[in-house]
């Protein structure tokens, strides 16, 4: 008798927990929908742009090494940082959900053995990241621009990193370090360079296309500033 009453209590308790959890989760999702603002005015790009075009990094099927890197906890965390908790972000700024497999155009990079991951989204964007550095999603670039670089101090004692997305027609990338061109590692739609220290003066990225055109892009390095 006692056991039967106890079992009923357990059942009742578990049902109560389920109901509370469901209401809580529903309220959270509902609040997200309420908090998300209506379509807002979006500042258009300041220069003419076009789509990034074909991204051959997604051709073929991922290798076993690519799959292993994509499953790595750090890569999973980095990818989650793109889309987690975006309930208050205006819908027109969201990158969309991942479609297809995660690709790794370059791996075993620099002092910290970093990798570059990349995936497509349902909204036609390409999201990509350099492990433990920066990440983002891109859909358009200025018409004449063939690379989208990011450069800075990795914060782990290693030298300055310059890396980024490269359009399909990019064949080589040089980084201007202390006035001299230094070759970057180039993979499908990505490039990477790490200087020997953070004291290196990095001023530009020079990309050469399949047609032989050279495109120079100045690099702005972030500097520590006093809080205002």
């Amino acid at each position, binding site marked *: 008798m006692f056991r039967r009453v106890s079992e009923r209590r*357990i059942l009742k308790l578990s049902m109560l927990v389920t109901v509370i959890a469901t209401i809580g989760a529903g309220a959270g999702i509902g609040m997200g929908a309420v908090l998300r603002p209506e379509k807002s005015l979006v500042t258009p790009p300041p220069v003419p742009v076009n789509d990034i075009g074909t991204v051959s990094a997604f051709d073929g099927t991922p290798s076993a090494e690519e799959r292993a890197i994509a499953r790595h906890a750090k890569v999973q965390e980095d990818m989650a940082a793109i889309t987690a908790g975006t309930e208050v972000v205006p819908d027109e700024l969201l990158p969309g959900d991942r479609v297809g497999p995660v690709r790794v155009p370059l791996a075993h990079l620099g002092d910290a053995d970093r990798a570059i991951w990349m995936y497509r989204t349902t909204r036609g964007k390409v999201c990509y990241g350099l492990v433990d550095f*920066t990440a*983002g999603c891109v859909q358009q670039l200025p018409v004449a621009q063939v690379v989208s670089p990011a450069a800075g101090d990795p914060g782990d004692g290693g030298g300055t990193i310059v890396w980024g997305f490269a359009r399909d027609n990019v064949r080589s990338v040089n980084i201007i370090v202390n006035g001299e061109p230094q070759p970057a590692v180039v993979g499908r739609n990505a490039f990477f360079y790490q200087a020997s220290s953070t004291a290196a003066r990095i001023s530009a990225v020079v990309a050469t296309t399949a047609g032989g055109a050279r495109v120079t892009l100045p690099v702005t390095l972030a500097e520590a500033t006093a809080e205002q």
Partner: protein
Amino acid sequence: MQIPPTARAFRRRCLSIDRFRVADARLSRAPRMTFILVALVAASLVFAAAAFAAISTYHNGGMVSGQIESTCCFYSRDFNRVYRPGGYVFQLGYSADGQTISWAAPNTWDNPFVDQRNATSAIAFCNNYSSYFVTPVTCQTTVP
């Protein structure tokens, strides 16, 4: 072999007791399993809610050229990120002492742009480094 009537009755009683025990065990195992299952579901929902709560939005709206937004307090941060239209230079940074801001690589075309570097105890910053008014802009970081 002939079983005496008393022994047959005893065996029948034992069998029925055994059957009752099996049935009773099944009855008590089922709700326990249900409870464990429900507890697991509830725990995962609570965990998901906690993960959602760990993202803090410290700016949502337009930002004029040179405008810098920041969080109020020193916390450990997993990342710092900005959602804004592409084409405008934005910087993300941390300050561990409240005096100096260590900026990440400036970025123009990525949306969102995420600074994956973490910070142990820092204020997070978001800077419209471009010469334009940009809207909409959402700056977010994580809180413990």
